[in-house]
C-alpha cells in the first residue's frame, strides 16, 4: 500500500513536470519572435521617414534616400504573380472539389502538396531557364512567374477546402431548381465560398511578398525607377539582402527599415485576411 502511494505521488510529480516543460518549450519559441520584432522595429524606425517611401536609393557614400522603386516593384511583382497564380489556383481548386474524386484528382492533389514543398530557389531556377534564358535578359515578368508558381499550391488547396465546406444542401437546392451544375457552382457555391478563397489568395500574396530567393536571378533588382515588366525590377526583399551584406552602415540601417516596411506590408495583408475571416463567421 505504501509503495503504491509513493508511486502515485511520483507519477503526479512527473506529470506536473512534463506539463510545465511543455509550457517552457512554448515560451522558448516566443523568445526569438520577440527579439526579431524588437530589433526590426527599433532599428527600422530610426530611418523611417517620408523619404523612404517617395525617394529613390542614393548612390554609395551619399546618405538618405529611399526605396520608392522597391516598394512599387514588390507590389508589381506580387501583382504579376497573382495574375498567374490566382486563376490557376482557383480553377484547379474548383476542379479538385467538384470533379476531382478520381485518380487524376488525387494525383493533382498530391502534386500541389509536392509543389508547396519545393524550395522557392528551385522555382527561381526554373523561371530562369523558362523565361530569362529565351529572353536573354532578366525581367520582372520572370520574377512574377516564379512568384505565381509559388502561390498556386496555397490557393488551390484553400479553394478546394473552402468549396468543400459549402453544405451539400445548398448545392442540391440549386440543382433541384433545374440550374445546371456549372451555374450552380459559379453563382451559388463559389459565391458562398469566396471569402474563404479570398483569404487563401491573400495568404498566397503575402507569402510571395516576402520571397527573395526566386527573385535573385529573375527580376534581379534595379537601382532605378522602372515599371517595365520586361526589364529588371527592384523589390524590398532583394534590397534587404543586398544592403545587409554591404559594408556601408547607411545601407545596413536602411535594410532594417526595408524589413520593417516589408513586415508592415505583410501584416496589413494578413490583417485584411483576419477581417475577412471574422466577418465570415459573423454572417453565419
Amino acid at each position: 500500500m505504501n509503495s503504491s502511494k509513493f508511486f502515485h505521488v511520483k507519477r503526479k510529480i512527473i506529470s506536473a513536470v512534463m506539463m510545465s516543460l511543455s509550457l517552457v518549450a512554448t515560451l522558448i519559441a516566443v523568445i526569438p519572435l520577440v527579439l526579431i520584432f524588437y530589433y526590426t522595429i527599433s532599428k527600422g524606425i530610426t530611418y523611417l521617414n517620408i523619404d523612404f517611401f517617395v525617394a529613390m536609393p542614393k548612390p554609395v557614400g551619399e546618405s538618405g534616400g529611399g526605396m520608392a522603386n522597391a516598394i512599387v516593384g514588390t507590389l508589381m511583382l506580387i501583382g504579376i504573380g497573382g495574375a498567374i497564380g490566382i486563376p490557376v489556383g482557383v480553377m484547379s481548386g474548383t476542379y479538385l472539389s467538384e470533379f476531382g474524386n478520381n485518380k487524376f484528382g488525387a494525383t493533382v492533389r498530391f502534386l500541389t502538396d509536392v509543389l508547396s514543398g519545393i524550395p522557392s530557389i528551385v522555382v527561381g531556377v526554373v523561371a530562369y531557364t523558362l523565361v530569362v534564358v529565351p529572353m536573354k535578359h532578366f525581367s520582372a515578368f520572370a520574377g512574377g512567374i516564379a512568384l505565381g508558381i509559388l502561390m498556386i499550391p496555397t490557393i488551390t488547396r484553400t479553394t478546394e477546402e473552402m468549396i468543400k465546406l459549402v453544405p451539400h444542401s445548398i448545392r442540391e437546392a440549386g440543382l433541384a431548381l433545374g440550374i445546371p451544375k456549372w451555374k450552380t457552382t459559379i453563382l451559388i457555391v463559389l459565391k458562398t465560398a469566396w471569402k474563404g478563397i479570398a483569404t487563401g489568395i491573400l495568404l498566397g500574396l503575402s507569402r510571395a511578398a516576402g520571397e527573395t530567393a526566386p527573385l535573385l536571378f529573375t527580376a534581379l533588382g534595379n537601382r532605378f525607377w522602372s515599371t517595365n515588366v520586361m526589364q529588371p525590377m527592384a523589390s524590398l526583399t532583394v534590397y534587404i539582402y543586398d544592403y545587409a551584406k554591404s559594408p556601408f552602415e547607411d545601407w545596413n540601417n536602411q535594410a532594417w527599415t526595408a524589413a520593417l516596411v516589408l513586415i508592415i506590408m505583410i501584416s496589413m495583408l494578413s490583417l485584411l485576411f483576419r477581417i475577412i475571416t471574422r466577418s465570415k463567421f459573423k454572417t453565419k
Partner: protein
Amino acid sequence: MDNPETQVNIENPNNKSNSLWISLKGQLKKFLSSHNIGDFIFERLTLLFAVLVFLLVILMGYEMYVGSKISIDKFGWSFLTNSVWDPVQEIYGALPIIYGTIVSSFLALVISVPLSIGIAIFLSEVSPDWLEKPLSFLVELLAGIPSVVYGLWGIFVLVPWIRTDVEPFLSEHLGFLPFFRGAPYGFGMLAAVLILAIMILPIVSSISRDILRSVPQSQREAALALGATRWQSTKIVLKDAKSGILGATMLGLGRAVGETMAVTMVIGNRAVISPSLFDPSYTMASVIANEFTEATSEMYLSALIQLALVLFVLTIIINAMAKLLVWSMERKLGTR
C-alpha cells in the same frame, strides 16, 4: 444552350438526304440531351487548369534536367561524391555542399523537434482555450516573417552574439570535442543551425499540434477514466500520433533543406567539410543563391542547375514521405 429541350430546335428537316449527317446529328442530340453543354465546358475548363498544375511539376523537372545536361554528362554520379567545388578549374563536386545541407538540417531538427513537440503538447493538451489562441497566433507569426528578415537579424544580432559569447563559451567548456574547435567567426554552421531551428519551429509545431488534436478525444477519456494522470494520457495520445509527428518532422526537414536566404546570409559560404560547427559551410540552396548570377561559363551554370535538380528531387522525396506518414496515421486511427 443550357437546357436539353432547346437543343431539339437544332434539327433541320432539309438535311434528311445525308445519312452520315443524320447519324452524326443523332449522336450529337443524344449527347446533348444527356449532357449539359455548359457543364461540359465548365468541367473541361477547370480540368485544363488542373492539368496545368500537373504539367507544371513535370515541366520543372524537365527544364532542370535539360538545363543541367552538360554537367550531368560530364560528371555523372561523381557530381554527388566528388568533394572539390572549384569554378575556376571547372570541377564541380557537390559532396561538401550536400554534407553542409544534411548536417545543418539534421542539427536544426535535433533542436527544433523536441521543442515543437513540447509546444504542440502545450497547445493541444494543457493550455486553456483563452491562452491557446494567442499563443498559436504568436507561433504562426514566426512563420510569417520573411526568410531574408531572419537573415538580416542573423547577420546583425545572432552572429555577433555567437562570436562573442556562444563560441568562446563552447570552446572553453566543450573544446575537447572536435565540434567546438577553431576560431570564433560567428558566421558558420552553428549560426545556420540555430537560425534554421527557429525557422522550422512554427511549421513542425503547428502541424504536430493539428496532429495531436486529430487524435479522438475518446482516447484521452479512455486513459483518464482508467486513472491516468495528464502526462500518462498525453503519452497515449503521442503514441497514437507517432507517425503523424514523424510526418511533421519530415515536413520540417523539407523546409530546412530548401531554406535559402537566412542560411546564405549566416553560414559563411565555403564548400568545405569540417567537423567543427564554428567553421563556415555551404548548403545547396545557398550555393545557388550566392553563385547563380556570377556563373559566367555554361558548365558553371549547368552545375548549379544540377544542384537545383538534386534539391528538387530530394525535397519531393522528403515531402512524399511526410505525406505518407500522416496518411498512415489517419488510416490507423480511422479519422478522415
